[in-house]
C-alpha cells in the first residue's frame, strides 16, 4: 500500500502528536548532554593513558565474548517479536534455566572419567542438554501462557510474561535452592591464546566460536530451509500464511523452541565464562539482551547479532572509557547502570535500532 502524504511517518505512528517544543527541546538537551559527556569522558580517559593498550584490547575481547552471549539471547527476543509483536519478558529465565541445566549436567559429568578424557565431547553433551531443557521450557511457556492470549490486547501477554518470569525464577529457587551454583572447572579451557596481538582466554574463544557457529546455523535455518521460510512467512502475515496452508501454531511453537535452544546454549556459555549461576541470573542478561535486540532493530536477525556485540562492548568499555574519564569513583560498580542507560537511550532515541526499521507497530 502506498503511503499517502497524510499518513504519519516515523518509527512509532505518533509522530504527528507531541510536537510540543518544550518536550522535544528537553529531549534534545538530553541527547546533547549525553554526547558531550561521552566525548569528554572518552577523551579524558584516552589521554590520561591510565590503561595500557593491552588492557583496552582485553576489555574489547571480553566485551565481544559477553556480547556474543547477549546476541544468542537477543535472537530469541527478536524472533518472537518478529512473529508475534510481543516481548517475551520471560526469555531471560529460559536462559537461566539453560545455565542451571548446564550446572547440574556438568556437575554430574565432572564425576565421570569422561570429563577429563574427552573435555570437548562432554562440553558438547552439556550444551545439547542445556539447549533441550531451555527449548522445552520455552515451548511449555508458549503453550500454557501465551497461546491462549494470542490476538488479545498486547499488554495481556506481556503481563503474563512478567508473571511467567517470576514464576520460573522462584520455581527454580524453591526446587533447586537459592544458593549460587559454581560450575566445575574445565582444565582444557584454562589459559589464553594470542591472535593478531589480541590475548584471548580460551574460554572466551570457545564462547565466541560457538556463538558464531550457532548464529550462522540459525541464519541458514531461517533463510535456507522450508521451516525457516514458514517462519518468515508467518512473521510477514499470519493470515496469508494460514491461507497458504501453513500451520501458524506449529510455526510459532518452532520459533519459541529455536529461540529457547539458543538461550539455553547462551546459558551454558555464560556459565563457562562467569563460572556461576543462581536463580536471579537470568534477569540482567535478559534485559540486556532485549536492549541488544532493540539496538539492532527488533525483528531483525542479523540486527540482534550486531546489537549484542555492540552492547557487550559498550558494557565492557563504557565504565573504563567514559565514567572513569568523568572522574566517577569505582566505575566498575556502575556497569549495570551503563547497560540500563544504553537500554533507556536506545528505546527513547532509536527504537528502530541501527539496522533498518522496527517492525511496524500499527498492525498490532
Amino acid at each position, binding site marked *: 500500500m502506498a503511503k499517502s502524504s497524510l499518513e504519519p511517518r516515523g518509527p512509532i505512528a505518533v509522530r504527528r502528536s507531541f510536537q510540543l517544543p518544550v518536550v522535544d527541546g528537553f529531549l534534545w538537551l538530553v541527547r546533547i548532554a549525553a554526547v558531550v559527556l561521552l566525548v569528554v569522558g572518552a577523551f579524558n580517559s584516552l589521554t590520561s593513558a591510565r590503561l595500557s593498550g593491552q588492557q583496552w584490547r582485553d576489555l574489547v575481547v571480553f566485551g565481544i565474548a559477553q556480547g556474543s552471549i547477549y546476541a544468542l539471547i537477543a535472537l530469541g527476543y527478536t524472533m518472537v517479536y518478529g512473529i508475534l509483536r510481543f516481548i517475551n519478558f520471560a526469555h531471560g529465565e529460559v536462559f537461566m534455566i539453560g545455565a542451571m541445566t548446564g550446572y547440574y549436567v556438568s556437575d554430574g559429568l565432572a564425576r565421570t572419567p569422561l570429563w577429563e578424557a574427552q573435555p570437548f565431547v562432554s562440553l558438547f553433551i552439556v550444551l545439547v542438554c542445556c539447549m533441550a531443557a531451555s527449548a522445552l521450557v520455552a515451548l511449555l511457556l508458549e503453550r500454557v501462557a501465551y497461546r491462549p492470549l494470542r490476538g488479545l490486547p498486547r499488554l495481556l501477554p506481556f503481563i503474563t510474561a512478567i508473571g511467567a518470569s517470576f*514464576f520460573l525464577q522462584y520455581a527454580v529457587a524453591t526446587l533447586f535452592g537459592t544458593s549460587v551454583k559454581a560450575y566445575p572447572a574445565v582444565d582444557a579451557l584454562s589459559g589464553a591464546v594470542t591472535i593478531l596481538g589480541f590475548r584471548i582466554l580460551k574460554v572466551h574463544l570457545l564462547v565466541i566460536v560457538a556463538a558464531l557457529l550457532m548464529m550462522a546455523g540459525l541464519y541458514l535455518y531461517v533463510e535456507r530451509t522450508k521451516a525457516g521460510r514458514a517462519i518468515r512467512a508467518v512473521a510477514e502475515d499470519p493470515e496469508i500464511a494460514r491461507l497458504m496452508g501453513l500451520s501458524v501454531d506449529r510455526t510459532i511453537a518452532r520459533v519459541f523452541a529455536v529461540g529457547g535452544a539458543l538461550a539455553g546454549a547462551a546459558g551454558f556459555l555464560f556459565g563457562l565464562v562467569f563460572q556461576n549461576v543462581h536463580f536471579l541470573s537470568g534477569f540482567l542478561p535478559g534485559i540486556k539482551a532485549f536492549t541488544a535486540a532493540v539496538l539492532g532493530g527488533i525483528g531483525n536477525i542479523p540486527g540482534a547479532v550486531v546489537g549484542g556485540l555492540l552492547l557487550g562492548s559498550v558494557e565492557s568499555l563504557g565504565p573504563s572509557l567514559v565514567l572513569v574519564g568523568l572522574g566517577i569513583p569505582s566505575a566498575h*560498580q556502575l556497569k549495570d547502570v551503563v547497560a540500563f542507560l544504553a537500554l533507556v537511550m536506545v528505546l527513547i532515541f532509536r527504537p528502530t535500532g541501527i539496522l533498518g526499521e522496527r517492525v511496524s507497530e500499527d498492525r498490532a
Partner: protein
Amino acid sequence: MAEPTVAIEVPETAAGDLLPARQVDLWRAVRLGLVGGLTAVFVSANGMVEAFSERALLGQVTLGSLLLVAIPLLVGYLAGQPPPVLQGFATPRPGRRNVAGGLLAGLLNGVVMAVFVTLIATFDVRRVLINVTPALVREDPRLLTFGLDLGPGLVLILVLNTALGAVAGTLHLLRDRWRRAVFVVVLWVLAVAMLQPFVVQVLRGIQAELRLWTAPLADFLYEPSGALSLPGAVAVAAVALAVQVLLTREGRRPAPTRLSSLPDRSRRLLRLAALAGMLIVLGLLPQVLGPFLSEVLNIAGIFLLMALGLNIVVGVAGLLDLGYVAFFAVGAYVTALLTSPQSSLGVGWIFWAAVPFVVLAAAVSGLVVGTPVLRMRGDYLAIVTLGFGEIARLLFLSDWLKPTFGGAQGIIRVRDITVGPIQIADPQAFFYAIFCFVLLAVYVTYALQDSRIGRAWMAMREDEAVAEAMGVNIVTAKLSAFIAGAMLAGFGGALFATKIGSVFPHSFSVIVSITVLVVIIVGGMASVPGVVLAAFVLVGLPELLREFEEYRFLIYGVLLIFMMQRRPEGFIPSRRRAQELHEEELTQDTWLQDAAADGRSATS
C-alpha cells in the same frame, strides 16, 4: 488455559428439535488429571507441602495436607464440569458422566503422585531437588503418604485421589443453589481456620479493650495447637450455611435493589450510619489488633498507598510502569535526608517539614521519567520504566553517590512522625498516620477519576489516537498521570522510611514494583475497592502467615498468569475497564448465554 473459541455451526433445525447434548469430555478429564498430578508433584518437590504442614487447620489436617487434598478436588470438579450449552444442542442432564470425569481426573492425579512418591522413596534426589526431604516419604511424619509406609501409602494416595475427584465431580449433580452453599461453607471454614492468629487476637483484643466477653469464643473455636476445634468447625459451618441459605432464599431481592427502593432520607441516614460505624471500627482497630497485627496492617497500608498510585498510572491512564519503585525510593530517601540528623544534609527536620519536599521531589522525578517516554506505549514503555527503576536503585547503591545517599549502608536514624508533642513510634499509633494517608489517596483517586483529567486518562487508555483527535492533550494527561502516581508512591516511601527508621537501597528492588503491579491486577485495574482488598490479601496475608513468605513471589507469578488468562479485569473489576477488555467477547458471550437460556427453557 482458555479453550480457543471455535465457531460452531448452528445446524438449521426446527424449534425444539435439538441435537444430543454435548457431554463431559473425558479427554479433558485425562489432561486435567495429569496437570493436577504434575502440580501436586511440583508443590511437594518445592517444599510447599512440608512448609505448610506447620500450620494445623482442623484436627490432624494441616495446610500442607489440605494442599494435597485440594488439588484432586479442584481437578475433579473441573473435569466433571459439563461443557457450555450451545444453541441447537440439548442441555445435558447431570449424571454418571460428571462423576466419571471427576473420578478419572482424580485417578490420574493419584497415579502421577504415586509414581513420584515411589521415585523419591527409591532414589535420593536431594542433591538436585533440595526440598525433597526425608520427611516427605522416608521418615516420619511421611507427609505425602499421610503417615503410612510406602506400600499402604501408595494405595491410600490412589484411593484418596480417586475418591476426592469423584466427590468433586458429584457436586455437579447438586442444584446450583446447593452447590454454591457447599462452596460457601467450605470457604468459611477454611478462612476461619487459616486466619486463626488474626481471629484469636481480635477476639481477645475485643475483650481486653471493650470488656465484652469474646475471649471464650476463641477457646471454643480453636484448640491449643492452633487448629480449629471440631465443635468450632461445625458451628462455623452451620452459621455459614444458615446465612447462605437465608441470603439465597427464593424471592429475595438483592440488597442494591432494596437500597435503591428506600426513600432518599433513609438512604442518606443509612450511609451516614455506615460511615460512622466504619470510622469507629477503624479507630478501635489498632487497639484491638495489638502491635503485631497493626504492624501487618501498616505494611499492607504502605503497599496499598503505592498500589493506589500505580492504579492511577496503570489502571486509569493505561501506562504500564514497571519502575514504580523509583518514586517510592525517592520519597524514602528525601525523607531520610531531611529528617535524619546523620544524613549528609544533617538538618534533622521534623517529618512534616520534609513532606513538601517529598511531594516536590516525587513530582520532579515523575516529570523526569514521564517526559522521555511520552512517545512510547505498552511494552516498550514498561521496559524503559523498568530501566529507570533499576538505574535509580543502582545509583542509590553506588559508591559514587555514597557521600549523599550512604551507599549500601543507607541512611539511619530517620525521625519518627510527631504530632505536637506526641511521637508516633509504635505500630498502633502509626496505623493512624497510614490510615490518614490512605484515606487521602482514596479520596484523590476518586476525585481525579471523575474529573476532567480522569476522563482524559480513561480516553487515552482506551485509544490514544482517538483521544487526541477528540481534543485530549496527551502530553499533559500523561505527565499528570505520572506525577500523580509518583506523589502517592513518594508518600508511601516517606512513611516507609519513618516506619523502619532507616533507608537501604536493597529495599527498592524491582520486586516491589512487581508486587504492587500484582496487587492492582488481582484487585482490578482502576477499581479502588479491588485494590484495597487485594493489598490486604496479597501483602498482609503473607506477613501474617509466615510460611507463605518463601513462596510469595512464586504465587504472585502464578496469579499474574492466571489473571491474564481468566480475569484480566481483576476480581473486583471497575465496570468500564471490564467492558473494554471484553468488548470482542461480549457479543459472543451474550450469544452463548442466550443459547444456554434457550436450552434450559427447552428442556424444562
